[in-house]
């Protein structure tokens, strides 16, 4: 870290994050003027109104400019619905957010606009939740978190989206190259041309006119904003005393007047252009795409002309990391926020992998991106390394050296399994090889796919229900079909069959929920900026949420806690049906009593085979369950006319999900966390080391999943020498060669974490990875902290 980066980084450490209201007010100002106009036009105008009037500033030492909110480290209050209720707001304040009483009043004054008019996502979705069928399901929490009121869904209130209006929590990778290489001016000109040539012959052509008009309005405003930064920089330069800084500001002025309107000509311009466009689409899940690939031509050209050194490139990469740290996100009610664990974000930058031709794609920039993360040690953005057979060993070592620092990144993903998955979904091989990741780990093609419905489905809740003949002990309702009393099942297979019937039933309801969500988003959140950055945007003339994309994975079914159920099934099979050591009645009683008075049964349950130890007895059950999930998922269709896809990311749903799930026969108490990841073992249940865990994970057919998640924790002593890292690299490659999709490591020792729990003030800088992203440990909920600590630590 040089002096500049150190200073910039220091400013990230604040005690309070201010909630800002400027954006909400400007958006509302526009909304009130455009009532009745087509939604996409309204959103374009609101975006333009905000961009034209937003407060701008350039901070000392900055090279990449563009302030996130109206105050440093601020979060602009969301503009998609009413704000948080008083109680929640109070909690947020205690959790480190700041909102003045005056600003709160300004936000409250807008609540009325949003309430009771079908303008929010929850109200829209709630319209379709009939009391008989869908509403009890939504209330059950099988899909986390449960709703309490039809019009409040998972809670109002959000803060921290970027400059755009966004499309909600969507996993998407846009085509950054379009802006970097062609510039927005050209894209806008194309839209204008298309509009001139448009003839109103169909309903679609009229909608297309709206779309094109919106694209022009919103994207022109982005260029105007960039110019405002240019003017500001020029003005600051004229007053600047330091000659060095003056030069920098002049360069900033020149750059902001050039990009993103025009094609970037240098690496520096490309970085600035990237930041502008990034802010327009920034959300908690905005992904950086194959950053080392699309930025490489700019770097290479500069290097060839000797107009940039690696130190300068590194500095810019670090400045970008700092900029991304200035951006935060918080939303929803407490349950929803717990699901996301603190100020969580999934801003994934992908490096390495193969080129469309199948050659190794690693380049100098790939190494520099790792170096920047190692040097500047911020938890965001996260980095994922794509690994293939010929990934250079020194690149693997460099990546593992970063991991060894305990920063919780990079994650590793296997090209083989991802590419196979895409090809199986009829993506041409060359495009499949160019895949990227949306959110944590979901397979995406830049500009050609997006996932906007991905619920957290609690499989162990369904296990409880299956055990009770369709009756849900938590809500006291008959939620599922009557598949038979547990006491009457003659064989294990009969019980498994009943469970699968229940599972398929609730998956089907989830598929409906996802479709309702997709449709509500489609109607409420058209976004001309995102949309322009999708493939053939202008020719298609449709919003990103209003079109079927080349790789259509709009709706995804995602199981949480499947491993608990696999372990539970193994225990039931062994103890109840095979060895008959526990009667069916005893087991049910023990679970209902949360095992109080039944310690012996719990001990037997714990001793039953557990996933994560390479034990075929239970691994085959896990395999069967995941296969069933994938096969069943493929029977549902999304509103985009494509089959739904299976995915396996649990984010941090295992904490709050566990909290509303009763005791399970894997030995888990009621309320305890569910297993994290999707092919990780339940916490502390894998006792035979990393290879045994991987053998279990390899037993699962991961091919039909667009992501799976495997967490491993290593004590630093396993990663001392280059030789140690080399062995770990081999471990990773072997796993990926055998169908593995993802693995990530936590490298911290237990005592450090325990101490951090006791003395959070001493560990503000401590970074850990929680299922797919990195976060400051002290900002996590206690349950998540406990979970990290309890994960098996491989002392080697």
């Amino acid at each position, binding site marked *: 870290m040089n002096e500049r980066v150190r200073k910039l980084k220091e400013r990230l450490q604040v005690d309070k994050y201010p909630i800002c209201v400027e954006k909400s007010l400007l958006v509302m100002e526009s909304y009130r003027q455009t009532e009745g106009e087509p939604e996409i036009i309204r959103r374009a105008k609101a975006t333009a109104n905000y961009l034209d009037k937003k407060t701008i500033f350039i901070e000392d030492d900055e090279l990449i400019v563009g302030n996130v909110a109206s105050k440093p480290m601020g979060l602009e209050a969301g503009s998609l619905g009413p704000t948080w209720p008083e109680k929640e707001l109070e909690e947020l304040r205690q959790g480190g957010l700041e909102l003045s009483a005056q600003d709160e009043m300004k936000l409250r004054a807008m609540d009325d606009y949003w309430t009771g008019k079908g303008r929010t996502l929850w109200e829209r979705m709630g319209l379709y939740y009939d009391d008989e069928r869908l509403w009890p399901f939504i209330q059950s929490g099988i899909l986390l978190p449960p709703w309490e009121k039809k019009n409040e869904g998972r809670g109002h209130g959000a803060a921290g989206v970027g400059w755009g209006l966004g499309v909600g929590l969507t996993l998407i990778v846009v085509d950054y190259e379009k802006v970097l290489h062609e510039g927005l001016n050209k894209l806008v000109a194309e839209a204008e041309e298309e509009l001139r040539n448009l003839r109103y012959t169909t309903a679609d052509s009229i909608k297309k006119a709206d779309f094109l008009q919106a694209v022009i309005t919103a994207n022109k405003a982005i260029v105007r904003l960039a110019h405002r930064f240019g003017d500001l920089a020029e003005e600051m330069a004229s007053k600047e005393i330091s000659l060095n800084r003056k030069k920098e500001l002049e360069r900033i002025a020149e750059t902001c007047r050039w990009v993103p309107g025009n094609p970037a000509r240098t690496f520096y311009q490309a970085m600035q252009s990237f930041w502008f466009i990034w802010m327009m689409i920034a959300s908690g899940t905005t992904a950086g795409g194959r950053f080392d690939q699309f930025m490489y031509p700019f770097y290479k050209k500069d290097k060839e002309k000797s107009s940039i050194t690696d130190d300068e490139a590194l500095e810019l990469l670090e400045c970008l990391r700092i900029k991304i740290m200035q951006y935060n996100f918080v939303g929803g009610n407490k349950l929803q926020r717990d699901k996301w664990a603190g100020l969580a974000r999934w801003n994934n930058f992908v490096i390495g992998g193969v080129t469309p031709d199948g050659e190794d794609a690693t380049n100098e920039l790939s190494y520099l991106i790792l170096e920047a993360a190692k040097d500047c040690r911020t938890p965001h953005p996260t980095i994922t390394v794509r690994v293939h057979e010929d990934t250079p060993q020194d690149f693997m070592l460099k990546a593992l050296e970063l991991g060894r620092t305990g920063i919780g990144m990079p994650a590793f993903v296997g090209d083989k399994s991802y590419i196979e998955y895409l090809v199986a979904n009829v993506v041409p091989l060359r495009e499949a090889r160019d895949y990227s990741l949306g959110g944590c780990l979901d397979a995406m093609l830049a500009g050609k796919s997006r996932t906007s419905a991905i619920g957290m489905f609690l499989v162990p809740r369904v296990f409880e229900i299956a055990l009770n003949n369709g009756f849900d002990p938590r809500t006291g309702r008959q939620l599922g079909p009557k598949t038979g009393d547990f006491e009457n099942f003659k064989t294990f297979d009969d019980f498994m069959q009943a469970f699968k019937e229940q599972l398929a039933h609730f998956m089907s309801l989830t598929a409906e929920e996802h479709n309702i969500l997709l449709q509500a988003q489609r109607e409420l959140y058209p976004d001309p900026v995102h949309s322009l950055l999708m493939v053939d945007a202008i020719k298609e003339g449709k919003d990103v949420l209003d079109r079927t994309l080349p790789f259509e994975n709009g709706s995804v079914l995602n199981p949480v806690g499947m491993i608990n159920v696999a372990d539970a099934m193994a225990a039931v099979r062994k103890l109840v049906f095979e060895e008959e050591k526990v009667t069916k009645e005893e087991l049910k009683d023990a679970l209902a009593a949360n095992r109080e008075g039944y310690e012996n049964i719990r001990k037997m349950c714990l001793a039953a085979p557990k996933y994560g130890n390479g034990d075929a007895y239970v691994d085959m059950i896990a395999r069967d369950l995941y296969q069933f999930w994938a096969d069943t998922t493929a029977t549902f269709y999304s509103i985009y006319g494509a089959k739904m896809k299976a995915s396996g990311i649990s984010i941090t749903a295992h904490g709050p999900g566990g909290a509303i799930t009763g005791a399970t026969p894997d030995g888990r108490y009621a309320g305890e966390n569910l297993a994290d990841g999707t092919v990780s073992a339940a916490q502390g249940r894998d006792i035979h080391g*990393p290879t045994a865990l991987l053998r279990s994970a390899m037993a699962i057919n991961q091919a039909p999943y667009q992501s799976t998640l495997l967490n491993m924790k290593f004590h630093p002593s396993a990663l001392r020498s280059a030789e140690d890292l080399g062995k770990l690299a081999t471990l990773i*490659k072997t796993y990926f060669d055998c169908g593995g999709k993802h693995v990530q490591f936590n490298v911290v020792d237990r005592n450090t974490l325990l101490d951090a729990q006791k003395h959070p003030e001493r560990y503000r800088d401590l970074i850990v990875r929680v299922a797919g992203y990195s976060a400051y440990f002290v900002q996590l909920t206690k349950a998540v902290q406990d979970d990290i600590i309890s994960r098996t630590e491989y002392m080697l």
Partner: protein
Amino acid sequence: MIESHNTKGLIFNVQYYSIHDGPGIRTTVFMKGCPLKCLWCQNPESQRLQREIFFELEKCTGCGICVQACSEGAIELFEGRSRTNRKKCSGTGRCAEVCPVEARKIMGRSVTAKEVFEEVARDALFYQRSGGGVTLSGGEPLAQPRFAVSVLKLCKDAGIHTTVDTCGYASWDTVQQVLSYADLVLYDFKHIDPAEHKRYTGVSNELILDNARKIYHELAIPMLARVPIIPTYNDSADNIKATTQFISSELGKNIKVHLLPYHRLGETKYERLEKMDLAVLIEPPAEEQMLALQEIVQSFGLEAVLGG
């Protein structure tokens, strides 16, 4: 020696992803029983060639179920907790089975060579890619020679690289028979002085050094030297010099020397075995000292590695 798939042996752990016990990713089989009694032993559960109880005092609620379950009358209640008379206990493991709070665990598992082989072979994929394999350690693998040979042969026949980690204290006949199935030997040098060696480990080192010469020159098996560094016992510069002198002049300069700093991971094990009287508390060596010792080894022209 007659080796057989059904030869039984007593082991106390199979550790996968062992990365500090030979090349590549390995599986280390820890065998029970050792002819040495090193004062600093960090695997005290490895010493006896019979099953033993591991007892976690802090978990024990003093319920007394184990007292009744023990057929040997080896357990009594004392100050509200259970206590085992280790002389009476033969390691039946009944108490561990009934203990409701898992305060009692049985150390030692009787297995056939075939069974161990099957456990080892599970990681074959990882061995292939990393150049790893199986390592027999302990305890002392040579203390159960028939079993060791049987396991090694099964592995070798399956194309798995074999390593034996040994203290070298056994008859030449035994050494020769077991190591003929080893691709690599990890050979321990605990002290170069025969009297000191006897003082700290219970046996003299003459046989050990003699076996080392023969293994290197007659059997010509690749060898790695492993020297544990135990502060105040064997960590003097003189001892390391003399040890290295022996290795370089009487064996060969191509032998890599691993200097293994003492660690305290085993300290709690003495408590679990109710052998606190035998535990010696030693501070691990400082990093600077390790580096200094490394330099000594290097000054003889030998490659020296700190740690596994």
